[in-house]
């Protein structure tokens, strides 16, 4: 197969909870650091890249097409183009899939892809109605017109809306992401206890895997010269009791989704170097593994958490059955949602699923998570000396994405 797609190497920043260690760094800075680190580590000539493709959900206003800003700031030559992709929670994976399609189509041979999100720096917004009033005030020329425009303003016009909250609400079904998880729990009879057990295991696994995960991480340099080297989401001392004590967030009385069994909102960035098999061989580069197949499928927005099911089934139809994967990474948007997926796919047992913990412990910088799953899965295959891996994510708005990876046995 001449147009095989390989992931040469990858690296990520630590994932840090919203408002903590990485809060001061905007998305383009997180991305710049991770790309500079990957370029320095691989020693690959950025001039030989065909494109830089990054996934990002919040699309920072001050860095439109954030992939281009990242590329230029990280020292990728100006002539190399850059593209930002947005498929909500699968954006980081989408960046990889875009590169793979280009390689298979013979468009290019080397891509730097990844995902980045600063959840901490998602802005507060004024409503459109308020903005229209401000514009009217700015246009008013005479004192009388100005007074009239001022009189239009109401206190609530000055109340900002959190863009993050808006982003986490599905505009079609009107449901908040947490509410979609509650819907799956309700319909699937997934108990609060089952969700908490799942969440606790995520913390335990992530804590136990700290050293393994360290191999994925390049430290982030903060402005004062200090270093951030570790994810700050996993809690070694997490107890079942503490999880049980949390109040449900979305359905206060009968619901089960809490802050403890949902993914943590985090900042972080991931970068992967992707090449045609031929290019990697020509350069004599060792690789992490191959991207073999992928699928993106739509589903009911109100049940977006089930997205992985049709995506994984689509792979199975093409001969890549989840039963055959030694390593499975399904993004832990919500414990209830992963449990619902497991219920729909018999034989997807815990032993192979998210063995190094997931977003409930590690955090979910939405645009970056897809690339993180690929990196974590490939590093796990590397430690196991090869095999097959399946990664999948549910996507807000009602989609599922899945990819099949493999690393040859030595």
């Amino acid at each position, binding site marked *: 197969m001449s147009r095989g797609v390989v992931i040469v190497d990858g690296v990520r920043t630590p994932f840090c909870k919203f408002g903590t260690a990485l809060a001061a760094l905007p998305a383009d800075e997180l991305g710049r650091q991770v790309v*500079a*680190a990957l370029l320095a580590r691989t*020693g690959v000539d950025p001039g030989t890249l065909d494109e830089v493709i990054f996934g990002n959900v919040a699309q920072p206003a001050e860095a439109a097409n954030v992939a281009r800003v990242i590329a230029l700031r990280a020292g990728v030559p100006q002539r190399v183009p850059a593209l930002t992709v947005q498929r909500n929670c699968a954006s980081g994976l989408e960046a990889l899939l875009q590169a793979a399609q280009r390689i298979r189509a013979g468009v290019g041979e080397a891509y730097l892809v990844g995902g980045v999100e600063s959840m901490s720096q998602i802005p507060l917004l004024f409503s459109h109605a308020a903005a229209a009033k401000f514009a009217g005030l700015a246009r008013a020329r005479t004192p009388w017109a100005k007074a009239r425009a001022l009189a239009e303003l109401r206190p609530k016009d000055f109340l900002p809306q959190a863009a993050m909250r808006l982003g986490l609400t599905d505009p079609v079904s009107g449901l908040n992401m947490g509410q979609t998880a509650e819907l799956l729990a309700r319909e699937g009879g997934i108990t609060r206890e089952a969700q908490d057990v799942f969440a606790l295991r995520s913390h335990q696994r992530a804590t136990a895997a700290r050293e393994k995960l360290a191999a994925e991480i390049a*430290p982030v340099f903060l402005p004062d*010269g200090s*270093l951030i*080297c570790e994810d700050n989401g996993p809690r070694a001392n997490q107890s079942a009791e503490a999880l049980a004590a949390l109040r449900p967030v979305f359905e206060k009385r009968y619901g089960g989704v809490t802050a403890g069994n949902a993914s943590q909102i985090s900042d972080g960035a991931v970068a992967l170097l992707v090449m045609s098999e031929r290019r990697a061989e020509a350069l004599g580069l060792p690789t992490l593994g191959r991207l073999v197949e992928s699928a993106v499928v739509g589903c009911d927005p109100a049940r977006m958490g089930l997205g992985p099911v049709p995506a994984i089934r689509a792979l199975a139809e093409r001969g890549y059955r989840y039963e055959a994967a030694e390593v499975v990474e399904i993004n832990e948007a919500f414990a209830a949602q992963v449990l619902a997926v497991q219920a729909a796919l018999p034989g997807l047992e815990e032993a192979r699923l998210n063995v190094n913990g997931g977003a409930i412990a590690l955090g979910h910088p939405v645009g970056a998570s897809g690339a993180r799953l690929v990196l974590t899965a490939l590093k796990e295959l590397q430690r196991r000396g090869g095999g097959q891996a399946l990664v999948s994510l549910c996507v807000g708005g009602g989609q599922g994405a899945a990819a099949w990876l493999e690393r040859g046995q030595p």
Partner: protein
Amino acid sequence: MKKMILRNDRVEGGKTIRFLTFDKPDSAANTFDAATLEALEAELEAVETDPAVHAVIFTSAKEHIFIAGADLGLLAKGGSSPEMLETYLRKGQELFNRIAGLTVPTVAAIHGACVGGGYELALACDWRVATDDSHTRIGLPETKLGILPAWGGSTRLPRLVGVPRALDLILGGKTPPARRALRLGLVDEVVPREWLERAALRRVSQGKRRQPGAIKRLFTRAVGAAAARQARPGLEKKTRGHYPAVLKALEVVAHGADEREVYPSLQRERAAVAELISLPESRNLFHVYLLTERARKLARGAEGRTEAAAVIGAGVMGAGIAQWLSAKGVRVLLRDVDAERVGAGMGRIRKLYEEAVRRHALTRQQAREGLDLISPAGFAARPARIPLIIEAATEQLALKRQIFEALDAEADEGALLATNTSALPVGELAQVARRHVGRVVGFHFFNPVHRMPLVELVIPEGTTPEARAEALHWVQRIGKLPVVVADRPGFLVNRVLLPYLLEAARAFAEGLSATEVDEAMLAFGMPMGPLRLADEVGLDVALHVAQTLAAAYPERMQIPPLLPKLVEAGLLGRKVGRGFYLHTGAKGPNPEAEALRGEVGTVPTVGGTRSRMVFRMLDEAARCLEEGVVEAPEDVDFGMVMGTGFPPFRGGPLRHADALGVARVVEEMLALNLKPCSRLCEMAAKGDRFYEDTE
């Protein structure tokens, strides 16, 4: 003969606009040599007698220079020929007066360096418009050469921008970039190069510039007189009488601003230059200027890739070097033994950038671009495709050797390997590099890197000519001034400086106070006394250098026993708050240091100590020349002026020896029980000098 000034007439709206374009044939720069002045005279005559000419725009055809000013060769000769100087100065003044007297509007359309006489021509015009190009610099640097602006600059600038600003500019010899010049009022408008002509034409359409009204003139006069009165005592203290041009300029500027007519002030300008130019101070400053030009030209014609470098070691020097390189547009891979140290280095680098933004040396945007150019390696990263690797580890030979072994294996075959060292033998590191034979050099940057212009370029034996040329090219590329030195202990600068520091420490140990020792050298013209310098450098660092040199030259570099005692007692200088001086709270001499010297015998005299300190430097400088550490007396003097702040008005140690007379130096050294080197003794016997022009 080819034309010095091109004449082009353009008809705009029925009116003839005359463009006079300076374009000295076969030269990258325009200067006011005799031929250019003659051509300007002819052009002015043509304008004055041609009623059809509606306006005049002065411009330049050179890529990077408007007009660089007077012909320095002519000026320098003026020292020995007062008549010639007077004629030359008068000629320029007369021509610029004629420009100022034209009845048609005049504009200087400035792109590139517009300094000295070039800016004085612009000052005689009604309007000044300039490009925002990085090559555009505007100002009057004459005092740096020990003279003052004498083609109307000292007279017209205060009238344009007021006395306080004019003094700041002229006394400092500053040449700010275009945007800053605009803020200071030196030019009327700054535009992109493509629009320079449009801007000039727009100014033409505004006609002659209106002269300030009587009230404004009165105000200017009052403020000016006050500013000048206030400036004088401070200046006298700061220059200690060593820079007569600065005081003279103050006098001329302040005096001239009071008068309605320019002529008396112009006359004072000429008289001042005539007086200053024959002083040794200005001759020496001229000399240093020529040495700087010489250093700039060392790398001429060299080529090589300079877009990226790796810096190994993120300590004070490594961070300083990485910051400087990145500020000059070089991509830098910064490495150290672990990520924490790289992080600490990044913190230092960011501080340097923030400081540069505060000083207006860089814009916020430029600082960010610079920071983005640095890739801090938080893990093992091979310096792939990087043409220059600078190792800046701690000064330990064994450690450096280990690093060089690794670098030799990791770096691209064509890479140039450099060590930043102040005293270690570069040749020993070169031996380690088996893949980079002949491609190992020493770069001795001085601390703080962003403020010290000099780099000692150490060329060990066996270095290929290509590697030497590449190294020079790099030094030039990053805007530093090189002095090429042989791979001998201490190279040039530290070797000459150390005996002086040891002498200072000894005088202190024998009972002189730190202030007495330092004051003696401040009076000599050093920017900082030797003991204060030791405090700044760190006594432990100074001791380390001293030990290296004492091992190499045991008969001359004896370390006074007090020095290791001070280090043992933890009096390391400024970094710990106390050394010879206290640096926190009650500043001043540190009684702890004085207590450590115990009982003192006969206290040496301040005068004798000063002579010893100076002569030890002169002698060691002569030895460097004798042993071929550098090739020429010019190298010694340039290195010491740029590397240590040896008073530029003395022209460097060897030039100072010439000024004293070598025979007298030898005689006085012997009287002080110092042993002059054989070179000095031979020269004294023959009545030789280091320079031919110091008679």
